[in-house]
């Protein structure tokens, strides 16, 4: 089994006229790579009618609905994170209940509110109650505010994780830009934060540093927007790890942190 813990899909109300082709491309590339499960999110309208990282409640719901449709169309290989905007607490909590009830398996926090902000607490509390992981978009070592998002970095996610020790958090795309060494240093002793290896970055030394910092049992395989980089990391990890360790990264760690029944093998 190979579980991609960081995938995305598009829908008809996004800026992408080629949304069908991109979704199909992800699935066909996944087949070549051997991906058995795409655990995906849709970030609202991807900027069409509200910002990607500050999606309106309407867009959040539309995107989550589109993902539920994909999940129903591909019940064997698509799983969903329910995307929420924590600035709309009531909507976010209702959306989590609704989408988890419809079969989604995790929560996606983009960059609508800093991870250190108390508004993330009601989301995290619901994640604990429902036993699902939270995938947090991260800018590795955020030295300033970047336009278009209220990004968090590894240290800020670690602070959230410390407030919610019973919630499993996934630090998104260690290869997704920024200083990954900063993130890894911040997460070394934070046992409830897992690192997904996705992102376009394929830096030499990055995977060794991940293993050194969080260990093989807190490493998750994923792709995000570039699937070839995910495949490359998988191939490289095969040279760093024993077959049994590689299985942890490929799927066993994911099975451990997602709710029981999310994947067929558990």
């Amino acid at each position, binding site marked *: 089994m190979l579980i991609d813990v960081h995938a995305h899909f598009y829908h008809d109300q996004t800026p992408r006229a080629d949304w069908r*082709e991109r979704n199909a*491309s992800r699935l066909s590339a996944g087949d070549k790579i051997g991906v058995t499960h795409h655990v995906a999110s849709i970030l609202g309208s991807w900027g069409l009618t509200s910002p990607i990282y500050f999606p309106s409640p309407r867009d959040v719901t539309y995107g989550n609905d589109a993902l539920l449709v994909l999940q129903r169309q591909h019940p064997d290989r698509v799983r969903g994170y329910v995307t929420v905007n924590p600035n709309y607490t009531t909507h976010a909590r209702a959306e989590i209940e609704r989408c988890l009830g419809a079969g989604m398996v995790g929560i996606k926090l983009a960059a609508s509110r800093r991870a250190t902000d108390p508004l993330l607490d009601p989301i995290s509390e619901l994640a604990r109650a429902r036993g699902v992981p939270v995938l947090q978009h991260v800018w590795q070592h955020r030295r300033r505010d970047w336009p278009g998002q209220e990004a968090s970095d590894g240290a800020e996610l670690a602070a959230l994780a410390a407030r919610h020790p019973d919630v499993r958090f996934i630090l998104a795309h260690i290869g997704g830009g920024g200083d990954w060494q900063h993130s890894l240093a911040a997460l070394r002793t934070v046992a409830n934060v897992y690192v997904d290896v996705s992102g376009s970055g394929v830096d030499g030394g990055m995977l060794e540093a991940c293993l050194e910092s969080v260990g093989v049992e807190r490493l998750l395989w994923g792709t995000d927007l570039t699937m070839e980089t995910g495949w490359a990391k998988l191939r490289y990890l095969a040279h760093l790890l024993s077959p049994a360790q590689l299985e942890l990264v490929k799927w066993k760690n994911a099975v451990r942190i997602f709710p029981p029944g999310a994947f067929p093998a558990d």
Partner: protein
Amino acid sequence: MRIDVNAFLGAYPYRRVPGTAPERLMQALERVQIDEAWVSHLPSLFWRQPMEGNAWLYDTVARERRLRPVPAVHPGLAGWAPTLGEAVDHGAPAVRCDPAHYGLDPAGPEVRVLAAACGAAKLPLMMAVRLEDARQRHPNDRAAELPAAAVRALIRSDDAVRLLITHADRAFIEEVHFGSTPDEAARMWWDISWIWGPPEDHLAMLVETVGVERFVFGTGQPLRIPENAVAKLDLLDLGAQRRAAIESENARAGLLH
């Protein structure tokens, strides 16, 4: 046959990178089934006198059949011209210039003179758009990325110059390719190290729009893991002939003469 036109030897100043020693590069080539690598000396890219790294590079590649040297040329320093003759004597497939790191205008008079000299010497000129993702660079790593406008200016500056541009993404390639005449575009080659695969399918699109003959296999190793360039080809439905073109034949036919 697989030729990596974009590899480095030697330490990187801004972070610890494994695999920078020659024997480790050879292991990586073996692991990823790369038959030949065109290598640059990474530390001297940051030196005031980058050409001082060339002697070590020549000496090192002379001991490894699968490596070919890409020596550095700093056209703003006195005495750079003989470097091109040395490069030819050592079988260099190209020379490289990193003007932003040298403090030169990338389309300024020094680099234009170098471009013309490379054209006259029948040596391709290699230039990198970047080495690392701009979002993660060290606070003191402030050299500008190579602008697309500079590449357009250089290819227009001399009818004989051939450019090998590494680490360019789709937007950069499209801007330069379609901002050039067909004759100019036919004298530029792009390595695939920074081009996205699926689901965006940038490489698949560029192969169709720009043409498969313009692309060569490059990894950027060891700053980047070389498995990435192979994986993106494995995800393309190219056919054996077009894949061979990217993996080796375009470099042989277009750059090695």
